[in-house]
């Protein structure tokens, strides 16, 4: 399997050969930053396009067709338009916070995006408490949403933001618990390590029952975490027009819009990494021939295939299910998911202690 770190090391040695190391690291940081931003934008565009086509397919429609072949460059048109659309400043709004909010949301999203291990050796932020960092970074998003709702001077926005706050903070617990279940199984919090440990089978299979339960809880809670249907209360279109970003126009709205989609990808990517082996090919212990064949498929293909499969699953759910009500959302979390998650964690501990996993 191709190790991407060969490329990065080669670049590093080339740069250090003619400049001081500090400068080289600085240049590398900038380059990586730019790459991340680019990847972020590309993923966002793919996601938006995918969302439209997938939902069209579920709804007996065609989706974008006329702009580019099969509507492939439709999203670019949207981006161009969004970039030059007027950004309205609201009277009586808290202008500083109002303008700051979308950037906080996008910052949180990019930070957690850079945690994802795309392929072997292609990890940007990879250190021993990677999962911890991801959880922390993704929670910043809720601050942005609360600020957006608060500073907009709009009652719909405020209700949307409050709903969002209640919902995201609650569901973070379940996300954390289900990730913790896997951490118990792996005894590491480093993403690259987690993926490496799945070389002889993905955790979904290795951890069997508790891992399955954790996976389902993670999908539900993750869906709620990114405010997508059936948990899209903060921006419930038929209730609160556009929820916390009602008053945002132009690119500020675009940032919220993009962040929502990439967050979905991040949730799917994390699920793919910790449950489905990330970039690790499908390995079945004992079948060496099969495993070697699988190894010929590059790691990032595996990663993206898994992630987009989960994205597709979540989109399916979003377009089919009706929206929950705020009290039902909180009941689901506090009365069902959290207790189940806790019991599940206990079960996983027992399984690990008695070595009942594969």
């Amino acid at each position, binding site marked *: 399997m191709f190790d991407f770190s060969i490329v990065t090391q080669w670049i590093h040695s080339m740069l250090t050969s003619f400049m001081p190391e500090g400068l080289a690291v600085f240049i590398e940081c900038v380059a990586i930053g730019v790459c991340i931003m680019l990847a972020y934008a590309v993923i966002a565009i793919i996601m938006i396009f995918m969302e*439209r086509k997938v939902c*069209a397919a579920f*709804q*007996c*429609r*065609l*989706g*974008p*067709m*006329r*702009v580019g072949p099969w*509507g492939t460059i*439709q999203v*670019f*048109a*949207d*981006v*161009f*338009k*969004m*970039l*030059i*659309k*007027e*950004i*309205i400043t609201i009277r009586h709004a808290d202008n500083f916070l109002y303008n700051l909010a979308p950037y906080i949301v996008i910052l949180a999203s990019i930070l957690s995006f850079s945690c994802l291990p795309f392929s072997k050796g292609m990890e940007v932020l990879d250190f021993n408490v990677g999962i911890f960092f991801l959880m922390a970074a993704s929670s910043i998003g809720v601050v942005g949403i609360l600020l957006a709702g608060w500073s907009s001077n709009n009652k719909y926005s405020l209700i949307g933001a409050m709903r969002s706050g209640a919902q995201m903070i609650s569901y973070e617990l379940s996300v954390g618990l289900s990730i913790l279940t896997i951490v118990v199984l792996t005894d590491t919090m480093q993403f690259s390590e987690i993926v490496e440990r799945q070389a002889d089978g993905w955790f979904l299979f290795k951890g069997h029952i508790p891992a399955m339960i954790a996976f389902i809880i993670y999908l539900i809670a993750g869906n709620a975490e990114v405010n997508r249907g059936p948990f899209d209360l903060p921006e419930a*279109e*038929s209730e609160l*027009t*556009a929820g916390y*970003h*009602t*008053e*945002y*126009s*132009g690119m500020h*709205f675009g940032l919220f819009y993009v962040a929502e989609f990439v967050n979905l990808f991040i949730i799917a990517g994390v699920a793919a990494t910790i449950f489905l082996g990330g970039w690790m090919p499908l390995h079945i212990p004992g079948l060496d021939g099969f495993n070697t064949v699988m190894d010929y498929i590059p790691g990032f293909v595996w990663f993206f295939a898994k992630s987009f499969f989960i994205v597709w699953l979540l989109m399916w759910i979003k377009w089919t299910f009706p929206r929950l009500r705020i009290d039902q959302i909180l009941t689901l979390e506090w009365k069902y998911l959290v207790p189940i998650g806790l019991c599940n964690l206990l079960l996983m501990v027992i399984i690990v202690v008695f070595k009942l996993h594969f």
Partner: protein
Amino acid sequence: MEIKKPVIKSIPYEDFKDNEYLENMVKQLNEGGTKVLIGCLDDLINWGRSNSLWPLTFATSCCGIEFMAVGAARYDFARFGFEVARASPRQADMIMVAGTITHKMAPVLKRLYDQMADPKYVIAVGGCAISGGPFKKSYHVLNGVDKILPVDVYIPGCPPRPEALLYGMMQLQRKVKLEKFFGGVNRKEEEPQKE
């Protein structure tokens, strides 16, 4: 730069021929001419804008149901990039005034229009929005939204068929393709003099 004939992929140019207004506008714009770079940029921007006109979900009466039908499975305006019907006026690009506008609604509609971010376009859908339609003589009906908003495209009918709505929306696309963002000569109305 020569301003090209605005082309919409799905409808052959000949089908638009009857639109004298646009032909004249092209002629007028061609007279001045623009610089190459700016012209290219304008083309790009107009391509983006015209292919991504997000409508505001706004409907007062019968035409609104036909508007929904255009979005639904058989007609599906998502094909042309009208996909994302936004409920918040801040994020919408055009307002389809679908249905009768009454005296009580008129200030609300105006306010909605003012809340939209530039560039914004207005389509008057159906007889009521164009002239008051069958309710022209009523004491409480506004005789045409063009009395309060600058209308870009009129779609006649009571209510117009979905095909007519699509055609009208494409006429708007075509019109957007003629705009100049950098070139200066915009056809937008001049701002009223401040007192």
